């Protein structure tokens, strides 16, 4: 029996190979090889392409611990990741619910299109359009002052909230899409059964809908948290004086001083921290899911 199923799974793998090969080949060439080169660089004193002598060292990793600067920034970036993820849930989940359970037909298609529309524009274009909206005398400021009877002064540009707004806008579609998929898969009859057995709407939400859609929430949160922690473009453009984060410091090492080894080491420390967080969270999340 066991042998039989083993051969079955083996032949299954063999027939699946042509389907898997392109993806794995691509992953090897495009991700695994450059990433291993970066691991290698992170242990070097200097890049070989500069023609200078180089040696292996742990100094780049030690630099992280010798200066409080990097830890401060890493914590700031983790906080940014958490806040952005939270706002994405607050904004994205209800939208996904309405899309999956309330709207039908044409109106669903239209709203769906609006949700994924930001994906079609370049990230930099989105950030610069936010810059026009958020600044003093910008679109938001002018519009509110035109409507409101009293004078208010809105200048969100170059501040922490501006970074949050920009990032939430960029990443909320991920949350909507992942939650939409799991919410749509919930059988309506389960909700009806709960209601007919006397559960209030809130109880149905808490006991039926949220637990069943948890995989989508978790997937969305992971998809958002990881890139936001390492983000550098949005903080740099929207954050102004407060826009220095862990990601911008890594970018500086690569672009401004050509210290790839230190930049690579800082990146891998970030990767390790993110993996540890996900690993610590996984039992909790698995139980919830």
């Amino acid at each position, binding site marked *: 029996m066991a042998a039989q199923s083993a051969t079955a799974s083996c032949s299954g793998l063999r027939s699946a190979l042509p389907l898997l090969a392109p993806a794995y080949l691509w992953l090897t060439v495009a991700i695994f090889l450059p990433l291993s080169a970066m691991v290698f660089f992170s242990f070097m004193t200097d890049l070989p392409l500069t023609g200078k002598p180089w040696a292996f060292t742990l100094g780049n990793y030690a630099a992280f611990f010798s200066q409080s600067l990097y830890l401060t920034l890493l914590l700031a970036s983790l906080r940014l990741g958490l806040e952005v993820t939270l706002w994405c849930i607050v904004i994205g989940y209800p939208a996904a619910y309405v899309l999956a359970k309330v709207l039908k037909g044409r109106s669903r298609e239209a709203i769906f299109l609006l949700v994924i529309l930001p994906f079609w524009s370049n990230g930099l274009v989105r950030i610069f359009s936010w810059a026009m909206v958020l600044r*003093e005398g910008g679109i938001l400021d002018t519009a509110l002052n035109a409507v409101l009877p009293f004078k208010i002064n809105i200048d969100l540009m170059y501040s922490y909230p501006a970074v949050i707004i920009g990032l939430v806008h960029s990443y909320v579609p991920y949350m909507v899409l992942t939650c939409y998929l799991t919410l749509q898969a919930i059988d309506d009859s389960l909700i009806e059964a709960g209601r007919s057995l006397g559960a209030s709407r809130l109880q149905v939400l808490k006991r039926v809908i949220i637990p069943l859609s948890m995989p989508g929430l978790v997937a969305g949160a992971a998809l958002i948290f990881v890139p936001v922690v390492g983000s550098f473009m949005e903080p740099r453009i929207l*954050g102004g*004086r407060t826009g*220095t984060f862990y990601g911008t*410091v890594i970018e*500086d090492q690569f*672009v401004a*001083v050509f210290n790839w080894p230190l930049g690579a080491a800082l990146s891998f420390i970030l990767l390790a921290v993110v993996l540890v967080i996900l690993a610590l969270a996984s039992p909790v999340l698995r139980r919830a899911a």
Partner: protein
Amino acid sequence: MRMPRLTALLTATAVFTTALTLAASAAEVHVLNWKGYGADEPWAVAAFEKATGNKVVNDFFNSEQEMLTKIRTNPGLYDVVMINAAFNDQAMAEKLIQPIDTSKLPNYADISKDKAGSPMLDHDGKVYGVPWVWGLTALAINEKSFDKPPTSIAEMWDPKHKGRVVIRDDAVEAVQFGAIATGQNINDIKDMDAVKTKLTSLMPQIKTFWSSENDWNQMVASNQIDIGTYWSGSADRAKTHFKLPVSLVIPREGAVAWLDAFSIPVGSKNVEGAQAFINWMIDPKFYVEWVTKVGAPVSANTKAVEALPQDAFNRKVMGDPEVAKRIQFQAPITDAQREAYLALWQQLKVDVK
């Protein structure tokens, strides 16, 4: 039946591509420079191609480090590279650039003697860089915020400009600016603590760190800033080309000056074309057109500057001997210094968060 046709087609394609590559490589000049910095102006490229028969292929970099990496990793690809004089030494030491035969550049004789003889560009009596243009990192003001232009760098620290000051997001520039504000030599900073203290007190004044000309111009256009560090050529461009209320201030404490020069990389396949291109770039005719159409820094060619109108900014203000006394030219800095400056700059940015 089908084979001969296929063979014929393949042969034709092969011949055609070979002819195309031959024609292309025969007279191409590959130029590496900042984007939008003179050498890629379409009208200039077209005129040069028409006059010399060389085809110009432009490539760009976003930082000096990237420029060095590009010539290191693509030997033989580039024929002309624009290198800031402070980086010329490093490029020569790494054997990335070759000596230039200036007798092939008729315009070289008109380059001002102090620039042509700069020890940053000439090594062992050989010329490794042809001075092109120079400019200042000084202050620029939003004319709407001032009745009369300030004269001192201390204006940046004035509480009435709180939240309306900008500075470039560049560690070396920031530290050298701090050196000027504390009355030190930018190339030999003795009291780094004074620089740090001075910059620390500037940080709360700052609205944001700019990184491109476009950032600066947008913030002035929407009246978000009063004053900030800016490049002389960019301030000129903002005023003449974009009609913005910007004017350059060269504070009495001084300003940082830089010199940009053209070099020919080792292994260039078209040295003759490269020489022709460099000569074209330092020609008065090109320079005057560049200044009038786009706005530019100051040419190193004295005849080119003299060809400008009497009251032109690049002639009247930048050519003023009083200004020449105040400015300090950037000298090469080591990698260790650059990393130390970056560490200081990052610490300042984190402390103000």
